[in-house]
């Protein structure tokens, strides 16, 4: 009997050993913890960029999506002939300089989604302290552009200029089409038969929903998910209640309710 026991024991150890060996021969990737930066108000651009590069390639987890350029645009290579991120960031959105655009991209990623990609990026402030977000912005600016992030940005809890304030009201306009454009609604919803199918089309929305239903969908996008779009539940920003004035919200609601 002892021979059987020994054979069973050796078999178990061999099987366990084989799996352990397989797990050791594959690439050993470790998930890093965001490190605390000790960058003061007198930090140099070079130190900011270096810190940002560490966060970008490590704890920020940015390369999981931006590394290959399939789930999200590659930051370090040319995209659609517009150059690397430092070169293209200033021309992405009208009225936003590079720093403001990148701040918005990292803290309100749903506000502007590059055509051809989905709105899958989280608000990085839930993952990283704000000084590290600024360091990442400095690193991205250094990729083909000028680094304008300074120690003053790190020192303040909110961005330095009004152009970079989080969740700003886009403009004072009450033109519904302009509002849909400015709030990046058309990045996910089609209108006039054109646009990406990430959210339900605005064409005929007045037949499917009442004005109250449309208002609720804007303010509480996850309260009721449209049939056929379940896989995108949770992707629509929940910030429009703060972003839009009451007048602007009503302008959009009435405009959409009339599209029957």
């Amino acid at each position, binding site marked *: 009997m002892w021979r059987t026991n020994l054979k069973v024991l050796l*078999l178990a150890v061999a099987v366990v050993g084989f799996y352990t060996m397989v*797990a050791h021969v594959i690439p050993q990737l470790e998930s890093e913890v965001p490190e605390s930066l000790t960058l003061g108000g007198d930090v140099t651009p070079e130190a900011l960029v270096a810190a940002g590069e560490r966060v970008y390639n490590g704890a920020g987890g940015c390369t999981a999506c931006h590394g290959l350029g399939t789930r999200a645009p590659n930051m370090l290579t040319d995209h659609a002939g517009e150059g690397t991120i430092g070169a293209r960031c200033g021309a992405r959105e009208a009225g936003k300089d590079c720093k403001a655009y990148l701040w918005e991209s990292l803290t309100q990623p749903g506000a502007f989604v590059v055509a051809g990609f989905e709105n899958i990026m989280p608000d990085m402030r839930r993952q990283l302290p704000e000084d590290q977000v600024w360091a990442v912005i400095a690193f991205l600016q250094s990729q083909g552009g000028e680094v304008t992030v300074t120690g003053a940005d790190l020192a303040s809890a909110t961005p330095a200029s009004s152009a970079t304030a989080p969740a700003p009201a886009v403009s004072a306009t009450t033109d519904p089409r302009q509002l849909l454009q400015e709030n990046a609604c058309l990045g996910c919803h089609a209108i006039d038969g054109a646009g990406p199918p990430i959210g339900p089309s605005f064409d005929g929305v007045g037949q499917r929903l009442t004005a109250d239903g449309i208002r609720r969908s804007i303010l509480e996008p996850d309260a009721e998910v449209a049939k056929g779009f379940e896989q995108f539940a949770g992707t629509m920003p929940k910030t429009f209640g703060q972003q839009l004035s009451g007048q602007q919200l009503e302008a959009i609601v009435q405009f959409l309710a009339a599209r029957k």
Partner: protein
Amino acid sequence: MTTELLSLVQAVADTTGAYGRFPGIGARAAVWIAAQVHLMFAAFVLGVPMFAVITELIGIVGKDPKYDKLSKEFTRLLVFAYSATALWGAVLVFFLTTLYPRFWSHMARIFGLSMWIYVGLFFVESFTLYLYYYGWDRWKAGRAKWVHWGLGLLLNGWGTAVMFIANGWLTYMMSPPSGVTAETLPESVGTWNAIANATWMPINIHRLIANAVFGGSIVAAYGAYRFLAAKTDEERAHYDWMGYVGNFIAISTFIVLPFAGYWLGREIYEYNQQMGITMMGGFMSWLWIVQAVLIGVLFLAANYYLWLGMGRIPGAERFVPYTKWMLLLLVVCWIIWATPHTMIASREELAAMGGSHHPFLNVLGVMSAKNTAVNLMILTTFLSFLMYRRANKRPTVAWARSGTIVQGVMFALSAAVVLLYGVYGYFVEAIVRIGFSVYQVAAVLTCILGVTVIDVALGRGAESRGAIRWGQMPERSQYALFVLAVTFTWLMGLMGFARSGIRQHWHVWEVLRDTSVDAATPALGFAANIISVCVLIFLGLVAFIFWLGGLAERATAGAPAGRH
């Protein structure tokens, strides 16, 4: 400066007293081992009662005492395993309270009430088990037997409730309800709100099925051990049959497990895209290659066992020529499934490959190819089961030939759908491609269900080509059952690491940060070392339980006749 100083003081205050120290291996490894071994035993004591009641029911309805004996034998193992589960659970709680007091305080403030209910249910569950086991011989006939069977059913109910509660705690750590942030007071979260989170039900279902798989494989290993140790032909025949039943339950439930896994994965993506990407495409992407290696071994060992088993069935010779082709298909599919998509390469290697993706890996290492491969492996394994089932039967129904042809057509159609969508997946957007896996899975499930229904009807009144010669199995077949049990156990540890590791440096995702020295999620090599230690501890203790089971049996057999 004052603000920075205050922040520093706050950070120190937050961390002081938050973590304890454990000598030698550190706090994380200590809690990891305690939690994993506890979970392995918990899976065993939840999985085994499921088919203890099923086999008892078969015995009652079919009036076959063989099944009743088998069911009682399963249950005897449970009595010992329950103690081990409770002991490791106590170790885990003590480790958590002493090594992770801040985390424990957070959880207790939210889940206190459910923790008391959990302990209460554990008591009730244990006493139900004792009644079920020790009442076996007293309530063995007539209405009393049905009452006894009801106790088994109740035992399953308690066990499932206990598991669902514990799953609420761990899934809250993965997917706390939206609106809960680092600033939220734990008392204000609400226990039910925290339990009924996004991943709770997918984990519940996934674990229910996985427990049946795990329990079946351990029982099969027990049967294998007793087969090898058997002194008589009768004993050998009984344990050969027991190993077969355990393995049948393990593999048949295992076939549906990937579908529960798809649901869980989808819920994780819907809850948080970043978490999903970390799991499938981030630092954990290579974990799925290791998983593919393990599951490939499972498929090969399961099929090998069935093919060897056909040697003891008269009439099975007619299927033998096909097995080499099935083996070839399984191996090719396994290789495709275990093909990585991206390689970590040097600049020179990238230049040689002509890009970040090797042209060969870029074709086979993608989901279209992998889903196709795994579905074909499931179909092949089902075909092995069917051959095994049909081996000694000669159908007598008038439509036997056309029924068999329909079964063949169903197999062919299912394989064609799987292949078609596999190839078509290369020509469409990712979001469309993801939906194709549903069609592939639906085709395979439809085939399995349809063919089984036809086969049951075909078997009615079938002539026998000869009785199965239970016990006449080569010894190597029993070692295949050991390989299955060890692999299932290791796989459970690996998936536990995947589920827990995707939280990365968070105790509770984006709510309670891990600020300990072990906050970084380790690489797979380190994780594999811990998993292997857990597996060896668990298997060592299970071997001890098996030995105890044998002792108890000998003691009962040697007891003087009289009142028990």
